[in-house]
């Protein structure tokens, strides 16, 4: 996954695959997560960001993705939960879901134009209505299970102080294709800068 960095590019891609994350599902998942101090989004297909930078995404009635998206203290909490799941220390009605996803955060002034090439969902109103507090508040926002460039993904649109961003999770087996194809499209759209 290498690419030339373009200064002042309209798009910015960040590989977030290495972030600590875990997943769980099952009838007891919500209760178990609450017992571990996580705040839970009220509705499926929504997510909230805790003060310590932990994202809790509710993917279905009883399926959750937990990820430390900011370098705050949340990473340790997520690692601990993951360890517990790996060791099957959770209740019987909570099932661990392996999350080895390829994760990318897409941002920049060309974001909406890029999204309109790769996905049939209209992100513009979602980005307008999404959390505008720099990721430190508690507002729930949407997460979408959709398809981008032919790959099933989970997408989390956000509006930050620095601009709009969409974080995308996909199965790692698609990672190479997904990353390279987005780079190709992004370069044609005016250029991509990578990393932080």
């Amino acid at each position, binding site marked *: 996954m290498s690419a030339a960095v373009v200064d002042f590019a309209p798009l910015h891609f960040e590989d977030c695959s290495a972030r600590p994350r875990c997943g769980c*599902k*099952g*009838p007891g998942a919500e209760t178990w997560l609450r017992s571990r101090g996580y705040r839970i989004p009220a509705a499926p297909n929504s997510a909230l960001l805790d003060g310590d930078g932990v994202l809790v995404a509710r993917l279905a009635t*009883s399926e959750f993705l937990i990820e430390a998206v900011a370098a705050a203290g949340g990473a340790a909490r997520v690692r601990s939960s993951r360890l517990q799941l*790996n060791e099957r220390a959770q209740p*019987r*009605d909570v*099932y*661990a*879901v*392996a*999350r*080895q*996803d390829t994760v990318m955060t897409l941002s920049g002034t060309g974001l909406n134009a890029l999204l*309109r*090439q790769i*996905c*049939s969902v*209209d992100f*513009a109103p979602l980005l307008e209505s999404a959390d505008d507090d720099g990721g430190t508040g508690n507002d729930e926002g949407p997460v979408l299970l959709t398809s981008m*460039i*032919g*790959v099933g993904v989970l997408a989390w649109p956000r509006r930050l102080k620095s601009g709009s961003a969409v974080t995308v999770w996909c*199965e*790692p*087996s*698609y*990672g*190479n*294709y*997904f990353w390279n*194809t987005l780079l190709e*499209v992004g370069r*044609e759209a005016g250029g991509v800068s990578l990393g932080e």
Partner: protein
Amino acid sequence: MSRLPHVAGELIDRNRAVVFNFEGERCSGYEGDTISSALAASGVTVFGRSFKYHRPRGLLSVANHDVNALVQVRAAQRSMPNVRADVVPVQSGWDVRAVNTRGGLRSDRLAMLNHLTPFLPVGFYYKAFYSKRWFPRWERMFRTLSGLGSVDLAASRVITPKRYDFCDVLVIGAGPSGLAAALAAAARGAAVLLVDENQGLGGSGLYARGGETQGAERTAELIERVRAHARIRLLTGAYAAGYYTDHWVPLVTRECMVKVRARSVVIAQGAWEQPAVFRGNDLPGVMLASAAQRLLYRHAVVTSRRVAVLTANAEGYAAALDALRVGVEIAAVLDLRTSLTPRSRVAAEELARRGVTLQFGVEPIEASAQVGSQVGRFEYAYAAGADGRATGGARGRGQLMIDGLWMSVGFAPANALLHQARAQVAWADALGQFVPHELPCGLYACGKVNGVFGLSERIADGEDAGACAASELSQRDARSRAPAPLADECPTHAYPIFAHPKGKEFVDFDEDLQIRDIENACQEGFDSSELLKRFSTIGMGPSQGKHSHMNALRILARVRGEPIEYLGTTTARPMFYPVPLSHLAGRGFTPERRTPLDAEHAARGAVWMPAGNWRRPEYYAVAGRSREQAIAEEVAAVRTRVGLIDVGTLGKVEVHGPDAAEFLDRVYAGRFSNLKIGMTRYALMLDEAGVIIDDGVVGRLGLESFYFTTTTGNSATLFREFGRLATWWGLSVGLVNLTGHFGAFNLAGPAARVLLRQHTSLDLSDAAFPYLALREAEVAGAPCRITRVGFVGELGYEIHCEAGKVLDLWRALFGAGERYAIRPFGVEAQRMLRLEKGHLIVGQDTDGLTNALEIDAGWALKMDKPFFIGQRSLRILERQPRRQRLIGFALRPDAPRRPRECHLVLDDTDLAGRVTSVGFSPTLSRCIGLALVTPKIAAAKRLRIRGDGGEVIEAEIARPPFYDAAGERQRGVDPA
């Protein structure tokens, strides 16, 4: 010159000249000109040659639908075929040529085909192709002669991006009704996207003026308001090429395709003016009146000095007034109708006052050329005088010397998208056209396509449609539309078709079809609109029947003696307008999956093959070895030492919950509720008909937890199906798809245990870890699931772990395995290894009809279970004779020829089956295989297989496995 002084509303910039070549001659125009308008302004009259007879052709519609105006454009080292000259803006430096000529437009050698008309009857292709003897000759000739533009095979690939767009209300067509609809919708808060195929807005509101300015001014005011409105986005030079469910509309722009999702759609695409059908109606200079008006008001071009207007509606009179206004002489206005109607009367009186001859009850006889190919003379019969007064039934005969003939005899609604959206239409006699009768939710029509022709009426109709489209979004004040008011006079002649004994009255300009072609097709029995189209090819050219469909229906109705509405309508498939293939191909999004070991395989020389949407190593190339040798060495490594194969592409699923065992018992044909924790079992999945659809291995992790695999190609489909079944059955289970999140490989061979033992503290002895057992343990520091399986017929361990850890694990085992001369092996070696064991591959050794009884898989079926998918069918099939059986076969070691997969098995001369797997076993030094054959052949001792060249290859039927029949090697004996 044909260029007029400044015309109000013209689209050209006279300060910016454009110079280009047409057929090698220098032409000029202005920015804002299309290719057609610049050529017309340069005095060009012949634009192309017709498809079949190579007759010279000029402009017809100037509306994007002329086959006559398709040109080849060479620009910047790129040659573009079939460029639509009517709508594409011309650019300096372009080299433009007519398509489909031999020797150029002027001296097209194929023009001699025009004299062979009697030998080219309708359905000629079908009649010619019928003869086997002559088919190859005809084929060669047609392939040489036919076609339009030339594809530049040397052109580099253009990756055309596609784009999605979204809006509340999509308005298609920016004529007066479309403009009004957009404004009305936007006024109610809707985000509107207004799209038009032309570069400019306004449609006929700007060019069909009738010598007046009020209509154009009113349209211009609408345009100004639209441009200023913050909630209206404009997309010009783009056409809506189709309509798909849920208001998906592909918009074709010059650059790319834009897929628009709208919440509601307003169709305001207007109507296509239709030609009259008479002898010589295709001569250059004979054009639709709207085409002349488009040239006049958009580009300030007139193509004729003296014209006759052939009309049957008020629009023809308006066109005549437009011509007078710019100094074109009107030789006569020839009305097909016998008398004036109220809408035409005012204009007719004005024309008469200005000295224009009006004649009624006109029947065209013939248009002919005088100099070159341009129309020069028009002969006709007529019935009444200038005031519409009858002349006692006597018919006069007229002849006019002209250089232009404008036709305005009727319209056909541009309702293709309405049809695609499943709108119901009904024939309106008062209009002579089909009008929308019942529209799907969220779809609206307005303007001419809705049967509304007057300018004020169109604007009102558009406002109503736009308001309804916007109201529907909120649902609060949604309302249904009242039927549109019908026009106060019929704008379309009932039968503007006039046969001539010598023919050449063209119904379809694309395919050179004449009246008698349609009549003859009907008489030959192709007398429904669908059959007629396919036999005669009418409507199958580039314009897709926009100018020919209605006239062909009229002829068909007359031949059948039925009203036109009895014939029904047809729905043209998308794309209804020509779309560049580069737009459709676009950027290919073909997802390819890779395992976590992909880079490792590449470093070891993997030669790739597709497996489902994954890429897998077929084998590993070795310097100095052929493909076959490399595969044979991989097989030998597994049989004699140890090998590693990446099986991470297998579907990998967990099922948890109190009903997990019940779920698996229902999904698979075997029994899993009695599977012991820590053991695995082969699983066969059937469909409701008992047909084999998948197989895998199920392992039990705990009382309520199982881990199982599916085949590579079916993993995604089956996981969705598992979810559906669990919900449908109401079982308390949780399914987890680990396919991409887990990696897996198979360590196989006599040295597998010794090698694995170096990296794990797990007791690998047969007693502690027997064949088919499942264990969870750390291997090289990574938490793994290990199963003892025997697909390749040797002692083997299938090791699964998280994707992020699998590469280190593979490398650790590989490093330690070097002392055992470990080899990675690919899919081809695995296929041979399993073939030696007689293990089948679902989808290769079975097909879409192979049931579980035909492969002797009774051991994997637990028919005494209360239920599993396919059980009921198998019970029925058990009582019936088998249709086929899977058998093994082997060739003599010295057999000179080898069969290949899919070669046919013979029963005397009858077909009795096919080879499903075959290959040369390096272990056995002979060719072995599997075949699906009839029970009769299965019971025989020998097999006869038909080879590639028709030769018969004999083989012995042999019961698999071919290798280690007792299974001792895969069960393994611990040497320790």
